[in-house]
C-alpha cells in the first residue's frame, strides 16, 4: 500500500481560533524587553573580542594552580571544612522554622494564617543572605557564626516556600481517607501527608544544602570565613594561581555534595 492510498478525512474546524493576536503581542513585548535589557547591560561583543589578551593573561597567571601544601592546600582544606560546616548548620538549623512556616503556608489553612506565613517567607527570601550576614556581624562579630545565622534566616524563607508548594502538590486522597476515619489534623499530617511528601522534602533539603555550601562565596565577602574567604583574599593579593587552587577545591566540594544528594534522592524515590 502506497502513501496515497492511506485513508484520509478532512480535519474539522476548531471551535476556538488560535490567539494569533495574543501570540504576536507577547512576541513583540518579549523582543522589546530583550532589546532594552541589551542596552541596559551595555552588551558589546566587540569589547569582548578586543580584550581577549587581558583574559588570556589573567588565566595564564592562574595556571598552573599553586599546589604548595603548607601555604595553600592545607589552609584550603581546612577552609573547605569550615565552608561545609557553615552550609550544614545553615541548612539543618533552618529545618524547624521552615517546617512550621511550610505547614502554615499550605492551601486550606485559615486565610489570615496562610497570608501571614507567606509574607514572612517572602520577606526572608527578599532579604539577601549577605544583608543578614552584615546584620549578624554587628551582633556576633566577623566569623563563621554570623554566616550560619545569615544562611538560617534566608533558608527558612526559601525552603519554607519550596516545602509548602511540595505539600500542596500531593494527592489529598490518603489524607481524606484518614480524616473520614476520625483521625485528627495532626494525626492526618503525621500519617498521610508527611510520608507522602518526605521524599520531595528531603530532595529539596539536599538541594538547599548544595546551594548553601555555595552561598558562602558571598558570605566570605563579609568575613564569614571558609574557602571562599580565601578566594577573595587571593584575588585581592593578585595571587591568581592560589585562587585557581581554591576554586578547584570548591569544584570538588560542590560535585561531592551533588553526588551525595543525588544518591540519597535515588534511594528515597519509590
Amino acid at each position, binding site marked *: 500500500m502506497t502513501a496515497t492510498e492511506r485513508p484520509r478525512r478532512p480535519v474539522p474546524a476548531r471551535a476556538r481560533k488560535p490567539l494569533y493576536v495574543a501570540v504576536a503581542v507577547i512576541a513583540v513585548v518579549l523582543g522589546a524587553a530583550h532589546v532594552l535589557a541589551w542596552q541596559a547591560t551595555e552588551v558589546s561583543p566587540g569589547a569582548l573580542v578586543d580584550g581577549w589578551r587581558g583574559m588570556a593573561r589573567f588565566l595564564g597567571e592562574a595556571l598552573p594552580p599553586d599546589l604548595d601544601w603548607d601555604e595553600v592546600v592545607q589552609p584550603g582544606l581546612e577552609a573547605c571544612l569550615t565552608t561545609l560546616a557553615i552550609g550544614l548548620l545553615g541548612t539543618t538549623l533552618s529545618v524547624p522554622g521552615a517546617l512550621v512556616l511550610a505547614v502554615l503556608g499550605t492551601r486550606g489553612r485559615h486565610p489570615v494564617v496562610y497570608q501571614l506565613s507567606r509574607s514572612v517567607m517572602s520577606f526572608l527570601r527578599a532579604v539577601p543572605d549577605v544583608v543578614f550576614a552584615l546584620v549578624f556581624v554587628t551582633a556576633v562579630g566577623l566569623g563563621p557564626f554570623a554566616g550560619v545565622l545569615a544562611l538560617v534566616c534566608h533558608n527558612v524563607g526559601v525552603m519554607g516556600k519550596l516545602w509548602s508548594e511540595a505539600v500542596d502538590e500531593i494527592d489529598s*486522597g*490518603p489524607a481524606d481517607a484518614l480524616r473520614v476515619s476520625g483521625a485528627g489534623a495532626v494525626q492526618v499530617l503525621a500519617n498521610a501527608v508527611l510520608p507522602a511528601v518526605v521524599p520531595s522534602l528531603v530532595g529539596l533539603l539536599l538541594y538547599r544544602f548544595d546551594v548553601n555550601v555555595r552561598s558562602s562565596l558571598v558570605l566570605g565577602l563579609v568575613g564569614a570565613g571558609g574557602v571562599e574567604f580565601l578566594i577573595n583574599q587571593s584575588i585581592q593579593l593578585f595571587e591568581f594561581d592560589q585562587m585557581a587552587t581554591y576554586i578547584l577545591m570548591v569544584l570538588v566540594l560542590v560535585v561531592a555534595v551533588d553526588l551525595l544528594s543525588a544518591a540519597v534522592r535515588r534511594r528515597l524515590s*519509590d
Partner: protein
Amino acid sequence: MTTSLDSGLSVRGLRKSYGGRTVLAGVDFAVAAGELVVLLGTNGSGKSTALRCVIGLTEPDGGEITLRGKSLKGLSGTELARSRRTAAMVFQQIHLVRRRSALDNVCAGGLAGLPLSRSLAPALFPRELREHAMACLDRVGLADRAHDRAGRLSGGQQQRVAVARALCQGAKVLLADEPVSALDPAAATQVMALLAELAHRDGLAVAAVLHQPELARRHADRVLGLLGGEIRLSCRGTTLSDSDIEALYAPDRVEEA
C-alpha cells in the same frame, strides 16, 4: 427487620445540588446489617455523592442520615465525628500511603482511638493496635504481605488492604465508592466476594457503588438504581434484568457533564 436496620445505615430525603444542578433530589434508602447493597447509575446520577454525604466528605443540603440507629442530625464536633466513625469508606483510587507497609496502612484506620503521643509514627503505635491490624489483614487474606510496601502490592491487594484499614477502624457500616473500577476482572471479583462475605459472615452493612451490572447481579443482595437524583429501581441482585439495566443507562437519559 427494624433491629437489623438499627445496626446499619438509613438515609431519608437526602438532597444535594451543586450550583443549581440537582444531584440528589430526596433520596431514601437503607442498608441493613448483614447485607450488601449495590448502587447503580450513570455518571453524575448521584450515587457517589450519596456515599460522600454519609461519610462527611460532602455536606448535604438536607435530609437525615442514621448510622446504627443514631441520627446524625443536630450532632456536631466530636460527637458527630464519633458517630460517623462507625462508618468507613473505601475508594476507587484506594488512597493508601504507598511508601508505608500494608500493616502500617491498616493501623492508620485505628488512629482515632489513639492518644496523639502514640500516633505520630508507626513505631509508636501500641502493640495492641498492631495485632488488631494484623487480624484485619488476615481477614482480607493478606497476612503474609504485612511488611510489604503498599505501593508494591497489586491493585486488588491494595484495595483489600484498604478494606482491612476500614475493619481496623471498627466500622460496622462499610461504604465502597467504585471499589473495583480500577481493577482487572479477577481482582474485581475477589474484592466483591470479600465485601459480600463481610456482610454475610461478619454482619457488616455494606453499600457499594458499582459500574458493572454483572458484578451487582452476582454479589449484591439488593440493587438500587439511581437516575436523575432519585432511586428509580430497587430489586434483589438475582432478579436484576437486562431491561432494568437498559432503563438505568438509556443513552438518551445520559447527560454528559
